[in-house]
């Protein structure tokens, strides 16, 4: 004689917040989520990297997949400034002033060899890297970088924004450190 196991009673769902359509998160996570998915870039294109950036924006590579397609040509409307090209000392105060005109929170991407290090211009007029005048968040290698490298830079910047804390943010007055480098 065999005994069938008594079937357990069906579980009654516990009334949860999620079930009721309520989610708990930190305000930081929410704000960072919205910031990283709507980056408005300001293209500071001075050389061939600027041409490459046009390819990143247009349909083949399509930067809008990462929410950064709304290119603004006023620094007051931009979140991230992309320095794509050679910057000379004559231009450095202009760049600094444009950066100062951007509203917080703001990020900086140095795209290409010239913006990161001066490239092969080892001379009297070219600035060896724009981090002499403004703090840089992401360095993208390449001369010029491939569009994939640009996109990788955007992704790395999104990761960086995701990890930001309010107490570290530039809006609170603290200067952050530049950390990430994208390999070509």
């Amino acid at each position, binding site marked *: 004689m065999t005994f069938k196991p008594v079937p357990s009673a069906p579980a009654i769902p516990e009334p949860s917040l999620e079930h009721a359509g309520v989610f708990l998160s930190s305000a930081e996570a929410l704000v960072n989520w919205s910031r990283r998915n709507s980056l408005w870039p300001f293209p500071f294109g001075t050389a061939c990297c600027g041409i490459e950036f046009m390819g990143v924006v247009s349909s083949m590579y399509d930067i809008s997949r990462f929410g950064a397609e709304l290119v603004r040509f006023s620094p007051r409307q931009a979140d991230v400034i992309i320095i794509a090209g050679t910057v000379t000392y004559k231009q450095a*105060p202009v760049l600094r002033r444009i950066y*100062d005109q951007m509203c917080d929170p703001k990020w900086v991407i140095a795209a290409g060899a010239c913006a990161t290090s001066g490239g092969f211009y080892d001379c*009297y*007029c070219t*600035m*060896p890297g724009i981090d002499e*005048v403004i703090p840089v968040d992401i360095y993208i290698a390449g001369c010029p970088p491939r569009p994939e490298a640009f996109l990788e830079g955007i992704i790395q910047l999104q990761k960086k924004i995701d990890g930001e804390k309010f107490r570290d943010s530039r809006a609170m007055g603290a200067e952050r450190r530049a950390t990430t480098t994208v390999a070509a």
Partner: protein
Amino acid sequence: MSAAAPATPTSPYRLAIQPGKSIEELKTALIERFAATVDPADRWDLTLLVSRDRLHEAAAFLRDDLALRFDVLLDVIGIDYLSFPDHRAERFAVTYLFKSTVFRHRLKLKVRLDEDDATIASLTDLYPIAEWHERETWDQFGIVFAGHPNLKRLLNHHEFQGHPLRKDYPCQKRQKLSLNDPMLDQLEARLKAKGYQVVSAANGSAQTGAGA
């Protein structure tokens, strides 16, 4: 139709393609009039060396002579021979490139300049384009063009010291620019003249130098 006597050219185009003086005639004319010599270093084209005092006169002759009509000054080139091998002449030279759009010929005039007195007459009264060419040459080589209306730096920024294309300028010596908008006062004056009210002070955020 008799082909012996060609019709006199009447259209401006036909006039334009008439040959002017041949290069040999041109050479002898310049050598006779302005004591020019042929530069042996120029192996592909014709370069005539003239003295500093005769340059302006020679350029005026090249422009105004109806058989020459050098109506375009293509370029002004500074040369520093400091580290040039086996160079015995003066340290600097300025080369002027002329072209005639009428007769389609070209000519270079070269003037040697001493290091202690690198001054030469400006050609801005003959060729207005010389203004920027001479500004650039002064900026990069420190060659002074006497009579130039506005001898300021063209390529380098206004706080730059020295002349970077001189061979004794250390080419990696970088010079930072501290002040933004060196022309802001001129801009404000222009705006005021047009009736705008200029609000911002001249140095509002202008002092945003490198490393600020």
